[in-house]
């Protein structure tokens, strides 16, 4: 194939600040419009962190992972469990069988988020040590099995969590700024990783599984590093989500979440950080507009009365349509650039 290799190789201010400013301006701007949009922005930021977490691993390595929902699940679990008040944990009906040390286990908001990241990274590091030798579909199914295992465990276990019910009264973020700052930090981290030699080696292994090791790349090692970092970020995403939703429920981190975030990545273009940002933005925007139409409101003068349930149908339809239109994603796997400004790349 003669396609140009996508992916950045050296630090470029524009490629970093493009996504940063886009997220910053949109979050503050849209969040200022109304209270419900502000909440929507907070949820979108959680998804954004998950999508860039997926980009770090899936985008760079070309290996599909359905297992990241599990890392978000445990990240959210520890963050929610350690911040819900002792009174709630001791009295809630769903938590009667809760293991005693967990009832007294308390952290402040930021430490709990850090704990979510550490646990996400830890689980990813342990499982990754085994799973990273797998390629293609086997990797996809094995990571899916990981997700299924964690889901099945938490859904039925009432010693470590609320089982199929919800952990109530998790403290919420006070506004859009806390998740925003966390997302921006995540973007910087991912950008710095993506221009590192490790990420470049990983992308080499994505392009050719036989040539990369011949050039001295240990595929398992570079994949494992990326998997662990993206596990930490997925844990962060889950920890953010639990403080936006104010409750922890295992279902929130299962199939819908996994596929929605993967779809965002693929729609935006999985080969670049900018693609992850654009994909999250596009899918979220389409979803919000349709939601408003479903509620019978008008947007820029256009008012459609959508029947209930049509929204998900249209989102699914536009996902497929976007793939048919441009299968490498809206950004075609390119990083952020401003056309006609400054030096244009040749070729």
């Amino acid at each position, binding site marked *: 194939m003669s396609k140009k290799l996508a992916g950045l190789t050296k630090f470029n201010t524009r490629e970093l600040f493009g996504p940063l400013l886009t997220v910053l301006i949109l979050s503050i701007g849209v969040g200022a419009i109304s209270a419900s949009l502000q909440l929507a922005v907070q949820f979108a930021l959680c998804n954004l962190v998950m999508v860039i977490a997926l980009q770090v691993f899936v985008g760079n390595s*070309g290996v599909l992972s359905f297992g990241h929902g599990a890392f978000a699940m445990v990240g959210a679990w520890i963050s929610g469990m350690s911040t819900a008040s002792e009174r709630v944990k001791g009295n809630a009906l769903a938590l009667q069988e809760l293991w005693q040390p967990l009832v007294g286990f308390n952290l402040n908001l930021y430490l709990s988020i850090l704990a979510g990241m550490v646990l996400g990274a830890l689980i990813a590091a342990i499982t990754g040590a085994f799973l990273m030798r797998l390629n293609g579909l086997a990797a*996809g199914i094995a990571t*899916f099995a990981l997700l299924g295992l964690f889901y099945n465990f938490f859904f039925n276990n009432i010693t470590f969590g609320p089982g199929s019910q919800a952990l109530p009264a998790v403290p919420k973020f006070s506004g859009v700024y806390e998740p925003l700052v966390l997302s921006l930090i995540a973007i910087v981290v991912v950008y710095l990783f993506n221009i590192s030699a490790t990420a470049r080696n990983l992308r080499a292994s994505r392009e050719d599984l036989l040539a990369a090791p011949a050039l001295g790349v240990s595929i398992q090692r570079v994949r494992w590093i990326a998997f662990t970092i993206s596990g930490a970020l997925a844990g962060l995403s889950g920890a953010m989500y639990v403080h936006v939703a104010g409750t922890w429920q295992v279902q929130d981190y299962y199939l819908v979440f996994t*596929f929605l975030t993967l779809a965002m990545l693929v729609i935006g273009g999985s080969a670049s950080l900018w693609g992850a940002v654009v994909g999250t933005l596009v899918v979220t925007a389409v979803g919000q507009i349709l939601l408003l139409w479903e509620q019978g409101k008008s947007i820029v003068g256009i008012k459609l009365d959508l029947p209930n349930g049509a929204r998900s*149908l249209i989102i699914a339809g536009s996902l497929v349509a976007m793939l048919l239109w441009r299968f490498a994603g809206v950004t075609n796997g390119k990083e952020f650039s401003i056309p006609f400004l400054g030096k244009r790349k040749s070729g």
Partner: protein
Amino acid sequence: MQAILDAISLGGTYALAALGLGLVFGVMRLVNFAHAELITISAYVMVVTNDLPLLISFLLASLVAALLAILTELAIYRRLRGTGPAIMLIASFGLSVGLQKSYELIFGALPRSAAVAPWMTGSFEFAGLNFTISSLVTVAITIAILLAMGYLVERTTLGLQLRAAATDFKTARLLGVRSNRLIGSAFAISGILASAVGFILVVENPQVDPMFGLNITILALVGIVIGGISSLRGAALGGFIVGFILSILNTFLGNARVYAYSYLFLAVVIILLVRPGGILSKRNEMERV
């Protein structure tokens, strides 16, 4: 004894679902999530046409499922050929959700139910052991279909082309296999297999909702990968193993049966680590793109 029979019958059902998925995967490397909706639509058709004789109702269901399968191929998958498995997988997931929502708009979100083939729910005694009729019928149907598929794949021109395409699609085309027709047939057959699965499932559980076929499809997907995606035999075997293990776990775990999936998924991870290409694969085989 009933436990073994149940396990075989569940394994057989999963094998049929895995076979439908494996067939399509073989010819175009597509993991077709929307297979679930083929199963669901055939179950819906059988519930809606329950007043008609069973055979006609089933034939209608097969026809609808096969047509829907071909339609998805023409409208979507054909244009995504050659974009890579990840993109097609995501597209098939989008399609799957889209179809689920369409069913919700057409049939409602609440389950539709009707007693399809009520005579199958009874049981009888033989040699001091109790058997349910449905598990026996399921095993019989599965064996019949597996034999028919075996004949189709091993003895007919279409089967030869399917096997050739699964081994090397490009070379098969160069040798004169008409790819569009072949892929279309694979989709049609997978639709018919889905309707057989739909029939078996709707007899066991007559409550059909938009997510009816999802569970078995996900597990059958797991099955085809652990069985060995490169061959139809591997796919069917993998599906069977998943269904069999699940049924046995459900019987013998007692109160811990809620964790049956955890054990199953753990087993899947271990099998894949030992044999990444599936149980029936040759060692050190690596898929080259």
